[in-house]
C-alpha cells in the first residue's frame, strides 16, 4: 500500500535532508551549554561518529525501496510486534514535531512578536504546514533546494559582516574540558540533529528509485551540507562570543546583533530571524508530513490528506504538556532526550537491519507463472 502517490527526485531528497539539518541551527545552544567555546569539536566528531548511522539509513532505504519505515517494521517483526514498535515511533514523531513547533513559537515570541500568544504563533505555523502536507511530499520539499542555497548565503554574508568582531583567541583553550563533556556533546549532536534524519526513512517510497551509488551520494551529501552550515554558524558564534556563548539561549541572534559596520549595516539579526523561521517551518512541514503518513500507515488507510489538519491541531495541543518552559526543554535536551532518542534513531534501526539481514528480508518476489520457464 502506497499512501502518498507523489514522487520526488534524489536531488530533492538530498536538499530536504540538508535543509532539515540546517534548521537545527537554533539548537546550537544545547551544545554551547556543555562544551562552550569548544562546541565545534562535538559537531565535527558527531558527524564522523554518525557516518555508520547514515550508512545504515541508506542501506535500509536500498534494502526496502518500496516500503516506508513502518512497512519495514511490519515486514521484519511481523504484524503485531511491528505495529507496537510503529506506535512507539508514532509517539516519537509526534513528540519531535511538537518540540519543534514549540521552538518556533518560543523563537518568534522572543524575537519578533512578543505580545502575540504562543498558541496563535504555533497555530498559524502549523496551519500553513498542514496546507503543504495536504498537497503531498512534492509541495513540502519543493523549495528545499532554494532555501538551502539562501541559508548558505545568509551564513556566508553574516560571517563577512561580523568579520571585524572575530577573535581567533576566542577558540582557546581547546580540549580543556573533562572527556565526559565531549562524549555528552557528541551524543547530543548524533541524536538531536543527525539522528533525527531517521524520519526520512518514512519518505522512501516517494523517492524515485536510486542506485546504491546515488543513495550513498544523496544521503551523505545531504547530511554533509546540513552539518557544514551548522558548523559554520557555530564557528562564527564562537569566534565572536568566545566562552560567553553558553550565556545565551540564541547565540546566533546575539552575534548578528553585534554587526555594526556603518549606520545602515546594523541590527542585522532580522536576517537570522527570517532564516531560522524559514528553516524551522520547513522542518515542521516535513515532520507533520511524516507524522501524518505514519498515522495513516498504522491505521492502514491512504486518506492521509484528511488526517493532516487534526494531527496539526493535536501537535499544538500536545505542546504545552511536554515542558512547562524552554529552560526545562533545554535541560532535558542536555540530559534526557539524547538517551531516549538513541532508542529510536540508533538501536531500533540497527536491530531492524540485523534481523532483516539474518532473515534475508525482503523475500524475493516469485516470478509470475507466465514468465516461468
Amino acid at each position, binding site marked *: 500500500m502506497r499512501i502518498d502517490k507523489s514522487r520526488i527526485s534524489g536531488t530533492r531528497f538530498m536538499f530536504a535532508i540538508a535543509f532539515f539539518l540546517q534548521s537545527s541551527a537554533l539548537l546550537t545552544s544545547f551544545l554551547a551549554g556543555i562544551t562552550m567555546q569548544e562546541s565545534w569539536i562535538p559537531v565535527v566528531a558527531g558527524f564522523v561518529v554518525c557516518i555508520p548511522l547514515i550508512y545504515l539509513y541508506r542501506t535500509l532505504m536500498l534494502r526496502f525501496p518500496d516500503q516506508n519505515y513502518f512497512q519495514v517494521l511490519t515486514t521484519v517483526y511481523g504484524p503485531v510486534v511491528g505495529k507496537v514498535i510503529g506506535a512507539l515511533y508514532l509517539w516519537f514523531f509526534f513528540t519531535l514535531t511538537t518540540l519543534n513547533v514549540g521552538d518556533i513559537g518560543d523563537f518568534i515570541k522572543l524575537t519578533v512578536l512578543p505580545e502575540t500568544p504562543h498558541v496563535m504563533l504555533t497555530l498559524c505555523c502549523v496551519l500553513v504546514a498542514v496546507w503543504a502536507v495536504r498537497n503531498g511530499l512534492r509541495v513540502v520539499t519543493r523549495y528545499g533546494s532554494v532555501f538551502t542555497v539562501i541559508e548558505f548565503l545568509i551564513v556566508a554574508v553574516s560571517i563577512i559582516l561580523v568579520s571585524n568582531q572575530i577573535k581567533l583567541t576566542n577558540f582557546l583553550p581547546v580540549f580543556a574540558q573533562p572527556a565526559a563533556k565531549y562524549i555528552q556533546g557528541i551524543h547530543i549532536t548524533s541524536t538531536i540533529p543527525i539522528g533525527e534524519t531517521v524520519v526520512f526513512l518514512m519518505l522512501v517510497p516517494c523517492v524515485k528509485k536510486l542506485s546504491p551509488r546515488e543513495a550513498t551520494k544523496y544521503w551523505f551529501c545531504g547530511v554533509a551540507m546540513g552539518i557544514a552550515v551548522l558548523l559554520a554558524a557555530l564557528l562564527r558564534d564562537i569566534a565572536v562570543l568566545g566562552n560567553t556563548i553558553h550565556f545565551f539561549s540564541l547565540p546566533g541572534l546575539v552575534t548578528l546583533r553585534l554587526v555594526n559596520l556603518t549606520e545602515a549595516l546594523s541590527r542585522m539579526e532580522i536576517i537570522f530571524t527570517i532564516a531560522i523561521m524559514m528553516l524551522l517551518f520547513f522542518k515542521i512541514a516535513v515532520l507533520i508530513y511524516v507524522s501524518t503518513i505514519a498515522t495513516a500507515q498504522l491505521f492502514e488507510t491512504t486518506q492521509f490528506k*484528511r488526517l493532516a489538519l*487534526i494531527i496539526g491541531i493535536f501537535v499544538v*495541543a500536545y505542546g*504545552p504538556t*511536554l515542558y512547562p518552559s524552554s529552560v526545562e526543554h533545554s535541560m532535558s535536551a542536555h540530559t*534526557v532526550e539524547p538517551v531516549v532518542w538513541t532508542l529510536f534513531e540508533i538501536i531500533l534501526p540497527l536491530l531492524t537491519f540485523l534481523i532483516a539481514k539474518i532473515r534475508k528480508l525482503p523475500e524475493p518476489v516469485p516470478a509470475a507463472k507466465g514468465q516461468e520457464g
Partner: protein
Amino acid sequence: MVWIVMGFLLIGLIDLRPLLAQRKLRAIAAFLVIFTLALVLTVLQKMNIKIPSVMFAWRDLLQWLGLTYPK
C-alpha cells in the same frame, strides 16, 4: 471554551464529513482517535488541569535506571 468547540466542529466538518460519506472506516478510526486526544488535551488545558508530562516520565525512568547525564 466556545471557540474551542467551534474550532473542533469546523475541523470535523472539513475532514470527517467526507470520510463518513465515503465510508472509509480505517481513516474514520484514525481521525477519531487523534481528534479525541486533541480535544481532551485542549479542554483540560483550558480548564487549567495539570497534565503529566511524558518527557518527565521518561526522565524519571531513566534516572531510576541511572541512564541520564548529570545536570
